[in-house]
Structures are given as C-alpha cells and as structure tokens.
C-alpha cells in the first residue's frame, strides 16, 4: 500500500474516450455493448480479463446465482460455476464482498483488504485465481443512482503477478466507472424497438427492479398499480421469458426478454380506439370541416341524431370542441 496521494491526469484522450463511449452507446446493439466497452477501456487501462455484473439486491442474492447477469470478458463461461462452488463454502470471499459494498464507486485490490501470505493459502486463491489467471485484481461496486437497487460490479484482472495495478490506475478506473453505467443505461433504452411514440419504456430485471427507465415510466406504472416503490409487480407477467403483449389494468405492456432483462413498453390505449365505426364515420366529416347539418344530409340522418353522436364522441374523448377533436384524431393517426 502506497502512502502517496494518487493523482489523475486528465487529457484529451480521456475526453475523446468518453465521447466515443456515448456515441457507441446509442448505436451499438445491446448484445455486443459490454464487450465493446471492455475493448474500449483497454485503450486506457491495461488488463487481461474482466467481469461486469449487473443485478438487483446484492445482499440477498449475491450468493444465489452468478448466471446471465454476469458478463465475462476473455474468461470462459465455467468461470462463474467455479466461483459459485467456492463461494458456497463458508468464509471464503466474505471479506471481499463486504469491502465492495462499503465504498461504492471506488476500486480496490484484493491485497488491500487481505494479508497476502494468508490469502494465497485460501481456496479462493488456489482454486479460482490461479486457474483463471487472476493474479492482480481490482473491483468496485456502484449503484447508478441514489435510489437504485441495481448494483454493478466491475473487476479487472491481470495474470502477470509482477504487474500490479497502481494507485493512478485505480483512480482512472474510478473516473470512468460512472460513464460506463450512464452509457449502459443509454444503450439499453436505445436498443428498444419502439412500437409507438406515445409510450413509456423501462427495463427491469427478473425481480422487477428497474435497471433503467425513461422518465414517466415509473409514474405511469405506479398510477396503474403495476409498480410499488419503483419495483414492478412482476406477478402480472406470467412467463418471464416470452416475448408477448399483455393488457393489464387498461395498460398495454409489450414485453421483450433478453439476457436476463425484461424490456417493457407501456402504452395506454387511446380513447379514439373506443369509438364505434359509425362514430368514426362522423368524425371523418368533422375533420373535413362539415357542419352537423352537412353530415346529416350526407349520411341521411336527422340533425338531432348527428348532434347526439357528436356529443357522445366529445364525451368519450373528454374534449369540448371540433378543433380539439380534429387534432386528437390526426395525432392518433386516424385519417
């Protein structure tokens, strides 16, 4: 441990790095984004392999499964199973997990919180670190927002045991971490295939916790009673892995399951959809600018029938005049 105060040197290269990160976030598909990120980080920070976990509620579930919410960079898939086996045995990695949640957003190395001589005797070191070349590692945990229940853990590994991460490098990793999270949530929202403009988008995990949501999504879901304390009541979704459109409590939810996350597009059906064919026909003439009298003569109806129809339409759409009706109908893509 160095007693020197670490410094961070900020240059154009870092500014460009951040810019490229955000540009790519809005262009790249979600499946390749994390992989792209690690390649991109490699231009600033040297490492051999890495790991990025995004999941909710660390306290309870940290030991349950390390499956599809773990992204591995240059490590085989079995890395996760191997870790889970070791982690299941008592008191192996507790000290590391504890350190993670103590100082969010701050990278630390294993050597900072363990006695090195002792650590290299542990099962964790012998059966995991040695096997996968994790001689030097720095990790950090971060919550993307103050109230977020989704935690992200990123670790960088080096297999060369003479090449330790310096204080400067940890500082740099701290600097770029928030940008990764910001870009990651942008990327999730950008990878939505939108059905309609008048909708709210959100991405939740399998426990209903919001990974990222467009402004208004949480309010809308809460209003519909589909969301409590910014946690989506997951029970309304019968099959978590299906891509389907369901209607619950007058809200239409278009669901898309991918990589352990559920993409939700919530749309309120427009009252225009409730109009009958006859009412729509009358709307057509109103939009054209016809008077009730004109409409009556076109459709061979009495003027009072048309009056009734028009009043019903206004009532259904909760509007007061013909101009508002016209603009609403055109906005909804009728006519």
């Amino acid at each position, binding site marked *: 441990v160095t007693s020197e105060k670490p410094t961070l040197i900020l240059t154009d290269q870092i500014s460009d790095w951040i810019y490229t990160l955000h*540009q790519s976030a809005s262009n790249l598909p979600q499946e390749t984004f994390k992989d792209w990120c690690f390649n991109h980080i490699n231009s600033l920070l040297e490492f051999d392999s890495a790991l990025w976990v995004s999941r909710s509620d660390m306290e309870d579930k940290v030991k349950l499964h390390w499956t599809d919410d773990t992204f591995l960079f240059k490590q085989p898939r079995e890395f996760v199973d191997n870790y889970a086996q070791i982690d299941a045995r008592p008191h192996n990695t507790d000290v590391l997990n504890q350190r993670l949640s103590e100082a969010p957003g701050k990278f630390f190395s294993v050597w900072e919180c363990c006695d090195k001589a002792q650590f290299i005797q542990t099962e964790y070191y012998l059966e995991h670190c040695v096997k996968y070349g994790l001689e030097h590692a720095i990790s950090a945990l971060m919550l993307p927002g103050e109230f977020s229940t989704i935690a992200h853990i990123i670790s960088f590994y080096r297999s060369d045991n003479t090449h330790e991460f310096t204080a400067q490098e940890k500082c740099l990793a701290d600097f770029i971490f928030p*940008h990764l999270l910001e870009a990651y949530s942008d990327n999730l929202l950008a990878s939505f295939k939108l059905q309609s403009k008048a909708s709210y988008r959100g991405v939740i995990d399998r426990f209903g916790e919001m990974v990222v949501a467009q402004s208004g999504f949480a309010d809308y879901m809460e209003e519909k009673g589909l969301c409590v304390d910014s946690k989506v009541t997951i029970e309304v979704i019968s099959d978590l892995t299906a891509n389907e459109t369901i209607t619950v409590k007058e809200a239409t939810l278009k669901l898309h399951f991918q990589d352990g996350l559920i993409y939700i597009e919530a749309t309120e059906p427009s009252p225009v959809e409730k109009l009958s064919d006859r009412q729509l026909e009358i709307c057509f003439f109103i939009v054209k600018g016809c008077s009730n009298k004109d409409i009556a003569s076109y459709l061979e109806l009495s003027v009072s029938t048309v009056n009734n129809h028009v009043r019903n339409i206004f009532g259904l759409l909760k509007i007061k005049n013909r101009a508002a009706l016209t603009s609403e109908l055109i906005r909804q893509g009728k006519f």
Partner: protein
Amino acid sequence: MGTAKLEVDEKTGRVLSEVITGFYHYSAVQSTAEFVHRMMSSMSRVIGFDAACWVTFSNNGLATAKSTVHLFHLAANFSSGYQPFLQQLSGSPKVLQGPPSGKNTSTTLDFFGEEIDRYLSSYDVQQQAIQLASFERTNHLLCLFSNGTVHSLGQQQLQTSLFLLENAARAFEHHLHLKLENQWFYEGSYKAITDLKGRLLASGPGFEACMTELVPHWQNDMLSELIEGRRLPAKQDLGRYKMRIKEENGFCSVEVYPFELYIEQLTEAEIDVAKYLIKGLSVGQIAEIKKLSHRTIANQQNSIYRKLVVSKNAEMVSMLVKSKYRVFFGDDK
C-alpha cells in the same frame, strides 16, 4: 497553447467525473437551450463563476451577430451589446487559429479592455476568463463572469474549466447527434442542424450524399444561401425533393425529404386512385368508374394525403408531376 492536461487528486477526479456524466445525461433533453443551461449551472458549482455566456458557432465560420448565444444569470438584453466584443474577439487569430493541427485545441485568454469593462459593469459583472474549445464541427466560446469584486481564477481552476468545456463541447456534439436521431417532421428524411447562418453543425447519415445528388457542385456552405435569404420556417421545393427549414433555440433544423420514398408507401389501390386524381377527376367520378362507394374512395384519398404529407389536391398533383414517377406516367422505356 496546446492540449489541455490536467492533474487532479482523487476526490476532484470523482467530482469531475460526476459533472461530465451529467453533461451526457442532460444531452438527451429536447431543448438545446435547456441543455446548455444545465451544463453551465453544473460547471458553476465546480469552478465558481457567477454568470456566463456561451457562444456556439460552426467551424466553417467565425462568431458573428447571428451566432447562438446562451446566457447564464445575465439579463436577456446582455448579448446584443456584447456581440461586437465577441466579434472582435473571434476575429483575433489568437482565438480561432490554435496549434497547426487544428483539432481539439483550446485556448484560454484574458480579454480585458476599458470599453468592455465599462459595458460589463453596467450589468454588475466582471470578466474572469474567456475560453474556447473546438470539437469536430462546433466551436464553443465560454465567457465567465463574476459579480462585484474580481476573484480571479487560479491556474488550476482555469485548466479545470477548460477540461470541462472540452467535454461539454463533445457532449454538445452528442446532443446534436441525438437530435438527428429523433423523430422529425417527415419520416425517412435526411437531416442536418445548422446555425442561424446556415453553417453546418451536424448532419445525419445520407444528408450530404443526398444534397450532392440534388444540387450540382454541392458544398456545405451553400446551405447559408438557402437559409439566409428566406423567412423561417420555410418549405422549399427543389425538384424531386422538399426542404423544410425550421428555427429552434437559435439553431436551424434542415430536413430534406425525397418524396419518391413516400410514393413507394402507397398501396396499389391508392396509386390507382391517385392516377385518376391527377387527371382531375373528383372523388364522386372515381367512385362511379370504379364502382365503389364514395366513402371508400374518400378514405383512399385521405390515406394518400397522409402518406405523402400533403394537405390538398393541388399539392399532391404538383408533387406527383414533379416526381415523374413511372407508375403514374408509364414506364421509362
């Protein structure tokens, strides 16, 4: 003058990281004015200035009276009197011609003169620093002011604000790119954003290729001629394309849409109706010929209008005639 290189301690690093994350977070807001204001206010929390003025201009041209100016804690009439100074400033080679590489350069300079001091004191502010950052297509001049007594910024603070401004310039370009991806008036059109003089700040994919095809010897500065000469917003007919120019928050959004693309959206039945319509037949007559109800034809006519984004028959006819689209006028053979 050269590349900004800033050395900070761990804590400051975190603060700066947070501020820059904020820039990109805000970049998704619709309004450019709101975006710039939010950036300035988060910068002011770190650097300590009381008022500021942010001028954005294209790499193709100097800051002029028509450049876009955003004010922070300054009265709205501030910019009109400040413009001449800016113009003078931007004319100075020291500002606009950085190192020969010309890319990603920044300059910090103190710009004090008696005249400007007198002007500024009428607004109760004093100049702290003027900084310039350029990135790709936009230049950004940030003038920092303090209230009352000048507490001049230290070297470290100047470097910090410059670093933030550089990142803000990048976030600004990102903001323009996001704007281009948004839904505009026409679906599938080619889009660009210019300053009020028509100098290109950002363009969407295909815009330049489309203009090159459209206008012989096309150059980006030719947009200025189109935009300056007319009242905004405007719609301009350019043969097989339409151009829509709209002024918003001190920027122009330019949209070029080839309406041949729109004709492709028409169904066969609609094309059939359109063929009669351009010959001048009424809906009633078409209904009679096709032995369909008046309503059906009227519906089809409406969907044609909607798909071609026109509002009346004459407009549709002129569009179809200009398109010389083979469906309507026989094959090219």
